[in-house]
C-alpha cells in the first residue's frame, strides 16, 4: 500500500515538473536561426558556409565531387583534365562513367540553405546597403548553383523559397522546368546579383561583386548559347526531350550569345580589369609571367575576378595538387607524384611564333608527313636529331613552357630527366625497359639515369613517371617544397579571370555573327600578345577555340567546352591519346635526341557515349522526376 502511495506521489511530482519548460533547453553549442541572422557577424558566418558549398571547379574538384580535401582525400591524383584531351593519368585509364560528375543532393542542399537566407532577408534589421548586398550575394550563389545543375542535368526543378513539410510529401515534389526556363532563371538571378552587388568589398574580401556576377553571366550565357547552336550535333530523343526538359531550340542561340557578349563587354569596359603583364618583351618573359599568374593568382589582382582561397595546410583548407603532380624527381618524399601527364594533343595545339594562327604539331621526322603515324620507332625513317631533349619544342608558344615541365628543363633546381630509351648504334631501339648499355666506355640508361629518383619519365614504377613525355607545371609553386602529406598545398584558384571573359566575348561575337568584330579580334589577340605573339590573327572560331585550349588549359574548362559545343562524341570516338618519346640516338656521335610520336603506353581507346551529355537524375523513384534520355 505504502509502495503504491509513494509511486503515485512520485508520478504526481514528475507530472508537475514535466509541465514546466525546464526541459526545453536551448542547445549551448548551436545558434538559433533568429539569433544568427539578427547579428551581422552571424550572417557573415552563414554566408561563409554558403561560399564554401559553392560548386567551384578548382583543385579539390574531380569526378566524385567538390571540396575533396577533407576526411580521406585520396583520389589517386585523378583530375577532371584526365577525361579530356588535355591529359592522361600515369596509371588509370578511366573515362566518363554514369556516376561521374554528379551533383544533385549537394546542389539542392545549397539551394535550400540559400533560400533560408533569401526568405529571411526582408525581416532582418540591417541597413539598406547591407540588405542590397545580401540580396545580391544570395542571388549570385543561387545562380552559380543552378548553373552547375543545368549544365549537368538540363532543366531541373526550380525551388525559389524554402519548402516546408506539413505532412504531405506530394506537395514537396516540384516537377522539372524546361531547360530553357532553367537557363533563363540562371541569367535572371545573375541580373539580380549584378543590380544589387557593389563593385568591391570594403576590406577587399573575396566575395561576389557586380563584376563576379557579370563574369558568371558571361560564362553561363555562352554555355547556353553553344547548346542551342550545336545541340543538333548530337540529337537525342525521349520523354524528357518531348517535354523540352533537355535541349534548347536553335533560335535561342542568338539571345544567349548576345547576353554573353554584353556581360563580357560590361567587364571589359569597366576599366577595372586588365591582362596581367600584357606586353612581355620576349617569350621567356611571357612564360614566366604566365607561370606567376597561376603560382599565386594574388600576383595578378588586375586579372583575377574571383578567387577561391586556400588559407593554410590541413583538412578542408589545403589541397593536393602539390603532392600529386610534382615530377618524380622533386617528389620530396611523397610516394606517388607525377600523375598529371599532358597529352601530345595539347602540345600540338600551341602555336609556334613563326607560324601564327595555326596549331604547330610537333614534327619529328625530316619527311614531316607522318604526324598521324603512332606506330612507334621505325628504323627506316629519317628522324630529326636534336642536341637537347627539349630543342624540338623551341619556338612554340610560351604558355606551353609554363604549363608543362618539358624534358631537360629545370624545376626546383634540378634538371628534369624524361627519356624513353635509346637507339643502339646497330639501329635497334631499346625503349621503355631493358638493361643499361655501354658504348665507348659510357653507360646509357633507358630512362636517362641510373637511379629511379633521378628521372621523371616512362618507368612504370609506382605510377610516378609521366607516360606522355612531359610533366605538369601550371599551378605548381616552384618556390615551395610541399610537405609529403594530405592537403598541404595552399595555392589559391582563380575561378574567373579576365582572359576567360575576353575569350567568352570573342567566341560570342564570332559564333553569333553579330556585334563588334574588331573588338572581338582585339580580345583574342590581346591574350596572344601577353603570350609573346606579335602578329595578329583574324577572329575565327578555330582561332578562338585553339586559344581557349591553350590559355585555359587545366583550368577545368575543356570538359565543359567539349560538352557545350557537342564535340565530345567526335573528339572521343574510339580515340587514343598520344605521347612524345624523347629517345637518345646512339647511332651518331655525339649522341643526339630524336622524338617519336606514339600512342600513350598501356592505354585504351575511349568512346564518349551520347547519353553522357546529360547526367542521370538520381532518385527518380522517390522524387518522381522524368529521367534524362537513355538512362
Amino acid at each position: 500500500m505504502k509502495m503504491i502511495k509513494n509511486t503515485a506521489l512520485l508520478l504526481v511530482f514528475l507530472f508537475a515538473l514535466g509541465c514546466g519548460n525546464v526541459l526545453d533547453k536551448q542547445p549551448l553549442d548551436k545558434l538559433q536561426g533568429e539569433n544568427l541572422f539578427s547579428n551581422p557577424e552571424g550572417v557573415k558566418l552563414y554566408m561563409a558556409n554558403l561560399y564554401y558549398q559553392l560548386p567551384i571547379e578548382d583543385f579539390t574538384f574531380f569526378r566524385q565531387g567538390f571540396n575533396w580535401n577533407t576526411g580521406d582525400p585520396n583520389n589517386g591524383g585523378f583530375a577532371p583534365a584526365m577525361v579530356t584531351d588535355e591529359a592522361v593519368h600515369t596509371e588509370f585509364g578511366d573515362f566518363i562513367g554514369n556516376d561521374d560528375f554528379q551533383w544533385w543532393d549537394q546542389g539542392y542542399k545549397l539551394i535550400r540553405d540559400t533560400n533560408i537566407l533569401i526568405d529571411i532577408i526582408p525581416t532582418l534589421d540591417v541597413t539598406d546597403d547591407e540588405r542590397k548586398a545580401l540580396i545580391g550575394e544570395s542571388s549570385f550563389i543561387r545562380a552559380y548553383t543552378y548553373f552547375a545543375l543545368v549544365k549537368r542535368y538540363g532543366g531541373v526543378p526550380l525551388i525559389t523559397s524554402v519548402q516546408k513539410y506539413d505532412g504531405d510529401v506530394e506537395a514537396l515534389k516540384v516537377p522539372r522546368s524546361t531547360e530553357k526556363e532553367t537557363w533563363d532563371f540562371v541569367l535572371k538571378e545573375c541580373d539580380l546579383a549584378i543590380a544589387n552587388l557593389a563593385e568591391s568589398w570594403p576590406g577587399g574580401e573575396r566575395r561576389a561583386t557586380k563584376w563576379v556576377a557579370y563574369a558568371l553571366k558571361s560564362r553561363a550565357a555562352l554555355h547556353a548559347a553553344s547548346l542551342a547552336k550545336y545541340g543538333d550535333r548530337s540529337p537525342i530523343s525521349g520523354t524528357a526531350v518531348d517535354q523540352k526538359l533537355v535541349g534548347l531550340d536553335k533560335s535561342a542561340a542568338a539571345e544567349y550569345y548576345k547576353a554573353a557578349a554584353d556581360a563580357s563587354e560590361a567587364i571589359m569596359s569597366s576599366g577595372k580589369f586588365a591582362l596581367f603583364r600584357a606586353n612581355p618583351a620576349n617569350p621567356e618573359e611571357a612564360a614566366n609571367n604566365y607561370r606567376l599568374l597561376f603560382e599565386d593568382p594574388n600576383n595578378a589582382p588586375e586579372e583575377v575576378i574571383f578567387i577561391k582561397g586556400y588559407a593554410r595546410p590541413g583538412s578542408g583548407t589545403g589541397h593536393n595538387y602539390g603532392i600529386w603532380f610534382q615530377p618524380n624527381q622533386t617528389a620530396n618524399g611523397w610516394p606517388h607524384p607525377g600523375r598529371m601527364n599532358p597529352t601530345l594533343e595539347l602540345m600540338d595545339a600551341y602555336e609556334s611564333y613563326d607560324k601564327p594562327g595555326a596549331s604547330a604539331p610537333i614534327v619529328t621526322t625530316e619527311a614531316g608527313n607522318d604526324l598521324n603515324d603512332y606506330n612507334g620507332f621505325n628504323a627506316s625513317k629519317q628522324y630529326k636529331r636534336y642536341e637537347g631533349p627539349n630543342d624540338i619544342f623551341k619556338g612554340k608558344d610560351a604558355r606551353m613552357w609554363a604549363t608543362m615541365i618539358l624534358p631537360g628543363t629545370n624545376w626546383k633546381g634540378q634538371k628534369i630527366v624524361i627519356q624513353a630509351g635509346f637507339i643502339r648504334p646497330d639501329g635497334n631501339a631499346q625503349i621503355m625497359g631493358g638493361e643499361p648499355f655501354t658504348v665507348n666506355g659510357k653507360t646509357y640508361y633507358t630512362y636517362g639515369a641510373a637511379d629511379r629518383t633521378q628521372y621523371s619519365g616512362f618507368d612504370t614504377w609506382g605510377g610516378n613517371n609521366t607516360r606522355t613525355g612531359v610533366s605538369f607545371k601550371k599551378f605548381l609553386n616552384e618556390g615551395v617544397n610541399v610537405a609529403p602529406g594530405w592537403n598541404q598545398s595552399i595555392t589559391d584558384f582563380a575561378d574567373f579571370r579576365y582572359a576567360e571573359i575576353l575569350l567568352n566575348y570573342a567566341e560570342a561575337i564570332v559564333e553569333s555573327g553579330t556585334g563588334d568584330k574588331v573588338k572581338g579580334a582585339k580580345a583574342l589577340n590581346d591574350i596572344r600578345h601577353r603570350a609573346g605573339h606579335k602578329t595578329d590573327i583574324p577572329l575565327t572560331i578555330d582561332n578562338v577555340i585553339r586559344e581557349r585550349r591553350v590559355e585555359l588549359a587545366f583550368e577545368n574548362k575543356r570538359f565543359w567546352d567539349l560538352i557545350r559545343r557537342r564535340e565530345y562524341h567526335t573528339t572521343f570516338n574510339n580515340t587514343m591519346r598520344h605521347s612524345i618519346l624523347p629517345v637518345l640516338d646512339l647511332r651518331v656521335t655525339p649522341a643526339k635526341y630524336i622524338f617519336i610520336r606514339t600512342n600513350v603506353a598501356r592505354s585504351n581507346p575511349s568512346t564518349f557515349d551520347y547519353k553522357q551529355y546529360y547526367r542521370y537524375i538520381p532518385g527518380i523513384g522517390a522524387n518522381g522526376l522524368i529521367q534524362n534520355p537513355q538512362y
Partner: protein
Amino acid sequence: MKTLKLHLFFLLLLLTGCSIDNYPAPDAQLFGTILDAETNEPVEQDIIRGSAIEYIEHGYESQTKQLMIFKNDGSYRNNLVFSNTYSIAPVRGNFVPVTPQDVQVNGATQLDLKVQPYIRVKDVKIEKVGTKVVASFKLQQTVINNVRKIGLYAHPEPTVGEPMRTALAEQEINAASDPNKTYRIELDQAANSNVLKTGSQYFFRVGAIIDAPESKFNYAKAVRLAL
C-alpha cells in the same frame, strides 16, 4: 525450464519472421534477331554506341525503361526476364524508327524485330591488293536522306565496327548514294603497320551511316583476312 521456454519462443519468432519471399524469380527468356523486313536478313549492329532495345514492363506506374543491346550479328538475348507483358521496341538505330509492340513474355520467348534498315550494304568484296586492303561495295538506301559517310574498319576481333577499330579508312559522302555505283575504299597497311601486322589475321567490315537523328551505322558482315 523457463529459459528453455524463452529460447523456444525466440526460435518460433525466428522461424515465423522470415517467410520465403513470394515473388517469382525472373523465369522467362527473351531473345531474337533484328531482321530486315524486306529481305529477312539479320541487320548487322554495333555493341558500343549501337542500336538498343527499350522495353517497359507492364503493371508498374513508373514506366521505367529497361535496355538491351545487340550483338554484331543483330541477335539479342536476356535469360533473366520476369514473365509479364512488355512494350518492346528497337530504338536509336540504323533503321527507320518503329512503334513499340506489346509482347507477352513467358518461358522461352522468341521475338524477331522487323525493321527497315536505312542502308543495305551489298555486293561487298574485301581483298588484299599489294600493301592495301581494298573494299568495294554497293549501297542501297531505303530513305531519301543523305548518306553521311562510308568506312572500312579493321580490328583483331569479329566485333569490329566504327566504334571498335584499330584502323580505319573513311569517306565523307553527304549526298544521296547511287545504287548503281561501286564504292571503293582503301586501307593502307603500311601506314598502320603496328596495328595491322603482316602475317596476322584481322576482321574487316564495311559500314555506311545515314544522316538522320541518332542514326547508327549499317554494315555488311565482317570478313576475315590474313595480311
